[in-house]
């Protein structure tokens, strides 16, 4: 499993992560970021890309 955490104090809801892993991150109708906290190992590369492109560097993750 890949465990994902978004620091919501840092997150500015730009949604760049959504373009890298749209099944994991999305903006709701109010423009607020929602995300899945645990995904399969096969999503690791895309989660890593999402963390890379976050302007606020708010996304962390770990393999467990």
């Amino acid at each position: 499993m890949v465990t994902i955490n978004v620091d919501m104090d840092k997150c500015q809801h730009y949604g760049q992560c959504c373009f890298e892993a749209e099944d994991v991150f999305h903006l709701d109708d109010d423009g607020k970021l929602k995300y899945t906290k645990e995904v399969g190992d096969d999503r690791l590369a895309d989660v890593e890309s999402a963390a890379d492109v976050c302007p606020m560097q708010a996304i962390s993750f770990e393999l467990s």
Partner: protein
Amino acid sequence: MTSGQVVVVGAGLGGLRAAESLRGAGYDGHIVIVGDEPHRPYNRPPLSKEALAGGVSVEQLEFRRKASIDDVEWRLGSPVVSSDLTAQTVTLADGSVLPFDGLVVASGIRPRALPIPGPEKGRYFLRTAQDAAGVREYLVPGARVVIMGAGFIGCEVAATAVGLGATVHVVALDEEPMIRPLGRELGAGMRRRHEAKGVTFHLGHTISEFLGEDHVVGARLDDGTVLNADVVIEAVGSVANTEWLEGNGLDLSDGLLVDDGMRVIDAPCPMVAVGDLARHPNALFPGPARRIEHWNMPTETGKRAGATLGAILSGQEPATAPFTAMPSFWSDQYKHKVQSFGMPGIANRITLVDGDVDGPCIVEYLDDTGLVGVVGIDRTSELAPYRARLLERARG
């Protein structure tokens, strides 16, 4: 498999991503990352916003680094001063000479310095954590701040300074703030947001002289107006840090020209360039190769460049697929979020498609080929369809 050494000149985001990508491509030789600042790669956009407002240290701004580059050698605080691309060496300010098999040019840009007479003290750029720490000292309630330049950095600093209780004047030759990326109408809308918060703009003007003996106390504009100032921030564009490449026969007039794989054109050795200084083609936006100083480009170009250099150093042909990264910028000013995809700056027609420029809105930027960019203000979650339309351009 491989051996030898890759030198990455520049310890910013582009250098970091290139090194990670080089490892991802299977390169297992030695990697040295050289940086002029004493810090590992850190995130710069907060320097004009929350880090300037206070409370964020450079350590908190450091990028997460992939485990694959745990073994790289960091040479920080000693910039590269020269290079010999035929002998394949770079020379650092401390005199040491580093040989390389492959070179990553990631030395980035620096703020443009205009030759304006007057005292130096109290005048700042905003590029490094050290710059931000220097400016922050001045930003107390009642402080008089003069900002030269009405681009994104100038406007973000204005918003941050107002938030800290300062009185802010912005002086710029442009007709409206952020006019090149946003266009006149939306730029005017952003100006009115700033004016509503108390910012005074002096557009169409330049600063002809800084006043004061030792420390700046004011600025005289070209029409004679005198603005009192406790601190001045100069944010009038940038220049590429390529002086260390002089003498190698490369065209350094505007960064470094690269191909779709970020390989430097006409380089006599395995050499790639990334980030703000890489003048690269983009199949989404045909036309001349361009430098794009947006935050996401060091990552996009760095990933491509690492893969290219890794292939070259293992004797393979690098991938030749067209580069199609989507440029994107974003800005926070007061509570307003400005976000863009594409290249609005190359448009010749601008259309407001939803809202109005003084409130939440979406603006399309077009040229003769169709949509080339979109900007949303406080409409972030609605921009995805526009981004998708821009990506369609790759399919012609």
